[in-house]
């Protein structure tokens, strides 16, 4: 019939515009909060996925070998170090190894690309084991190599698009004067693979005259293997370097960590601003209703009743704002996502902003918590109003 909650919600309709603006403030800050929390959660997940997509948990490289394409580009292949392909046999004999795939990176300067030429990298892979490990790779056109020694290439989506390459086209390996026939073009995967030219590693060995040599081996370890202990064991092999993906992940996480602290501070500031807005709005409406509150007290409202009334107003405002913000965060997740992707130095390919029911509930909980706290002061002020003062004040004014 009539309740404090009803009075509270209706009183929010008194100054509609003011309530709406306050609501918007809360909605926007909740949107920011939820998106950022979603990002925190999503980033971690897609980083995990990304690393799973590498297909192997441990990468064995020759000591001093650059394992990132970027480093390879910068050094123009000059810094390449090799290990003998006999290492594969040693690895196969280890019980921890479930699967492995040998790889050979090669890079050569192509004067024809770009303004001043650039280093083009070739990734030599084993057609028997590599596709199995990278099961997420899908073909736009064509398929894997016809033969482990074929002078053929499978290229990433971007490598194809930028040069308008099609299956059946050729790639001339500069200096070596060898033509590779494109047999497959991969679908866009959002990873480094998009720009990669894959060649059978045996073919690449003979083109670059590095027979019997590898630059790295990707290793999939068994389920129950202690990776750290296994890493130590691998170091017993001569002249190798072990890169575990857990390590890579923590490096990237650290890198992004700083950025995350920054965005979380922004969220905090947004929330503080919204909070000040809420306190201001409610306090203003308390002062405007001084007499009304006095009269309520004269008709039996206790300080507790008035406190609850004003506090409910705050919480209702925050609840609606929080829900609105949550809806915005959910609906605009794609927008937030591309924004973050644009800003981050490294972003995994999965969805960066992961918002689920649990997170929504938690966030709305936080917003309401904020409402509860912001409501305390105005509610306390209102509860202290003495009926006699409120009445005298207005009668005197008349």
């Amino acid at each position: 019939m009539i309740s404090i909650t009803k009075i509270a919600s209706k009183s929010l309709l008194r100054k509609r515009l003011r309530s709406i603006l306050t609501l918007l403030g809360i909605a926007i800050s909740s949107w920011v909060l939820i998106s950022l929390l979603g990002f925190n959660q999503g980033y971690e997940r897609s980083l995990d996925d990304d690393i799973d997509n590498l297909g192997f948990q441990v990468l064995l490289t020759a000591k001093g070998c650059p394992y990132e394409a970027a480093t390879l580009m910068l050094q123009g292949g000059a810094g390449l170090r090799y290990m003998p392909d006999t290492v594969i046999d040693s690895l196969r004999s280890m019980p921890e190894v479930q699967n492995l795939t040998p790889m050979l990176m090669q890079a050569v300067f192509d004067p024809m690309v770009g303004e001043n030429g650039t280093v083009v990298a070739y990734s030599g892979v084993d057609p028997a084991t590599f596709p199995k490990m990278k099961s997420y790779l899908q073909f736009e056109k064509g398929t894997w190599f016809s033969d482990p020694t074929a002078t053929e290439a499978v290229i990433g989506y971007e490598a194809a698009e930028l040069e308008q390459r099609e299956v059946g086209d050729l790639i001339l390996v500069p200096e070596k004067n060898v033509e590779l026939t494109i047999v497959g073009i991969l679908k866009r995967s959002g990873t480094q693979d998009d720009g990669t030219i894959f060649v059978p590693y045996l073919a690449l060995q003979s083109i670059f005259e590095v027979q019997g040599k590898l630059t790295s081996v990707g290793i999939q370890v068994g389920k129950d293997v202690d990776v750290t202990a296994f890493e130590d064991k691998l170091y017993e092999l001569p002249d190798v370097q072990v890169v575990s993906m857990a390590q890579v992940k923590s490096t990237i996480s650290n890198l992004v960590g700083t950025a995350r602290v920054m965005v979380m501070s922004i969220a905090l500031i947004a929330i503080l601003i919204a909070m000040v807005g809420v306190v201001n709005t409610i306090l203003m409406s308390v002062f405007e209703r001084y007499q009304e509150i006095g009269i309520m007290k004269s008709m039996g409202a206790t300080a507790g009743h008035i406190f609850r009334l004003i506090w409910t107003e705050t919480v209702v405002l925050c609840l609606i704002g929080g829900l609105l913000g949550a809806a915005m965060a959910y609906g605009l997740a794609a927008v937030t996502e591309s924004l973050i992707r644009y800003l981050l130095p490294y972003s995994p390919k999965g969805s960066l902003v992961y918002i689920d029911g649990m997170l929504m509930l938690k966030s709305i909980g936080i917003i309401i918590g904020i409402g509860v706290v912001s409501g305390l002061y105005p509610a306390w002020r209102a509860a202290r109003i003495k009926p006699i003062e409120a009445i005298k004040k207005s009668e005197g004014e008349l």
Partner: protein
Amino acid sequence: MTIISAEAIRKTYQRGTEQIHAVDSVDLSIEQGDFLSIVGASGSGKTSLLHILGCLDNPSGGRLQVDNQEVFANSKAMPEKKLTGLRSRIFGYIFQSFYLIPTLTVKENILLPYAFKTQKPDPDAIHTVAKQMGLEHRLSHLPGELSGGEMQRVAIARAIVTDPKVILADEPTGNLDSRRSAEIAEILYSLNQDYGKTIVLVTHNPELATRARRVIELKDGKIV
């Protein structure tokens, strides 16, 4: 039966170094079913006295009993929490300005006291008072859509909906023209006559005062 009993009630205000004796040694006893009118010049202490009688304000001295409970004695007042209960149980207040809540409908405004009570309103109560105040067709309206007289009638309805023993009215017609004033006077008269409500009315309006059974006049805080 005596519902309000005041002995040597004083109210002093401090204004700078000056002491103002707004109410000065007032002895007053109000019986249940009484209709008392308080008149007097402006500043004579009518409102101050009414607020004390209605337990809205504490006296500076004297002794006050309401419904056989000690509200003020030996310079000590009843605790605020108990006072609040007493106020909502015994009194209904009507003021010169109506203090309706603009965002609530007439019906909700009338039932407002129940928002602060554990007890639920009698489902018929609203219709009874609405009929009594001639507001049956206004229940779903907002206060802004009413005339001044109607607004005061809503305020009266709100004051009586909880079935208080005593109705305190401070210049209830101060904001109304003479026709509406007469209407309100009629209502108060009927509340006393037909429903047995005790009424304490502060007014400047001699016509209104004459409807009362008893009239006291204040001058400088004293009954003359």
